[in-house]
C-alpha cells in the first residue's frame, strides 16, 4: 500500500534557523575579538631583520610616521611607493599635517621598517631626509626572533 505524506509531515520540512544564527553570532564574536584595530602599516614587500631584543614597546608612541624601505630602495609611505627623490615632498606634506594638528615634530616617532637586504647607506639617506624635514625620533623596526 502506498503511504501518502500527511499534512503534518509536510509542515516539518520548514528549516530551523537557530543553529545557523548561533554560528553566525559566534562568527561575529570571533571576528570582533581577533580584529586588529591598530593602524599598523605592513607591506609584504619588506622582510624585516630579526632580533632577539626587538620587543613591542610597553607604551606605544602616540604620534607615528611609518616609512618602509624595500630591498631595491623604494620607499612606501601611506601605501604609496616612491623614490628617494620624491620622499622629501611627501615628508613636507606630513610635516604640514602634524603642524595642522598642533603636534610638535619632536613628539613624532618615525618608524623605519627597512628590508633586511636594504643598503645601510639608503637607510641613512632616508633618516637624513627626515632630519632635514625636522623629525628627531626614530625607531628601527625588527622582527622578534626566538632565543638561540
Amino acid at each position, binding site marked *: 500500500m502506498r503511504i501518502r505524506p500527511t499534512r503534518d509531515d509536510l509542515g*516539518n520540512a520548514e528549516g530551523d534557523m537557530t543553529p545557523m544564527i*548561533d554560528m553566525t553570532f559566534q562568527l561575529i564574536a570571533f571576528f570582533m575579538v581577533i580584529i586588529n584595530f591598530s593602524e599598523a602599516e605592513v607591506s609584504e614587500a619588506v622582510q624585516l631583520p630579526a632580533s632577539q631584543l626587538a620587543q613591542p614597546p610597553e607604551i606605544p608612541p602616540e604620534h607615528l610616521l611609518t616609512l618602509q624601505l624595500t630591498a631595491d630602495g623604494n620607499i612606501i609611505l601611506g601605501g604609496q611607493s616612491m623614490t628617494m627623490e620624491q620622499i622629501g615632498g611627501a615628508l613636507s606634506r606630513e610635516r604640514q599635517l602634524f603642524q595642522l594638528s598642533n603636534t610638535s615634530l619632536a613628539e613624532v616617532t618615525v618608524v623605519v621598517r627597512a628590508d633586511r637586504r636594504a643598503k645601510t*647607506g639608503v637607510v641613512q639617506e632616508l633618516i637624513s631626509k627626515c632630519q632635514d624635514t625636522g623629525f628627531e625620533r*626614530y625607531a628601527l623596526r625588527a*622582527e622578534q626572533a626566538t632565543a638561540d
Partner: protein
Amino acid sequence: MRPRNQDIGPEKIDLQMTPMIDIVFQLLIFFIMTFKIVAQEGDFSIKMPQKPSAGPPNPNQLPPIQVRLSSDANGNLTSIQVGQRSLGRDFGALRAEILGIIGNERGPGSIAENTEVELDCDYNLNYEYVIDAITHVSGYTQDGKVFKMLEKIKFARQRPPA
C-alpha cells in the same frame, strides 16, 4: 469545544544540521586560506636631531664608542671594528668588548647610561647587520630575561656609495 490536537503527543523536532554544517565548512576553509603566522615586531629607538639640543650639555656624557662595520660590494659584512680594535665578523666579540668598556654597573650615573654608540657603516652593508650590531650593543638575553647594556645609539655621517 474540544481542541482538535489535544490527543496528539509532543512533536518531534528535527534539527536541521545542513545550514550549520555549511557555515562551519565555510569558516574552516576561510581560516585555512587566511591563516598566517605573524611574528611580533619591536623597535630600537634612536634619537638623531639634526641640531644638537639647545640645553646645556650633559657634563657626565662620555665620548661615543665608535663601531665600524665594513662590507664588500654585495653588502656582506667583512669586519667589525671597535675604535682601533678589529673583531673579525664576530658579533659576540662586539658584545664582550662593549661589556668590557661599560662594566656591570647600570642605572643613573653609570658608564652605561652616559655612553653612546656611534655606528659607522659602509654604504652597501646589508641592513640586517646593522640590526645585529644594535642588538649586540644594546643588551642580551639570559634564561629568558633581557639584560640591557647601551640605549643611546646613533649613526655616524653617511659614507659615500662605493
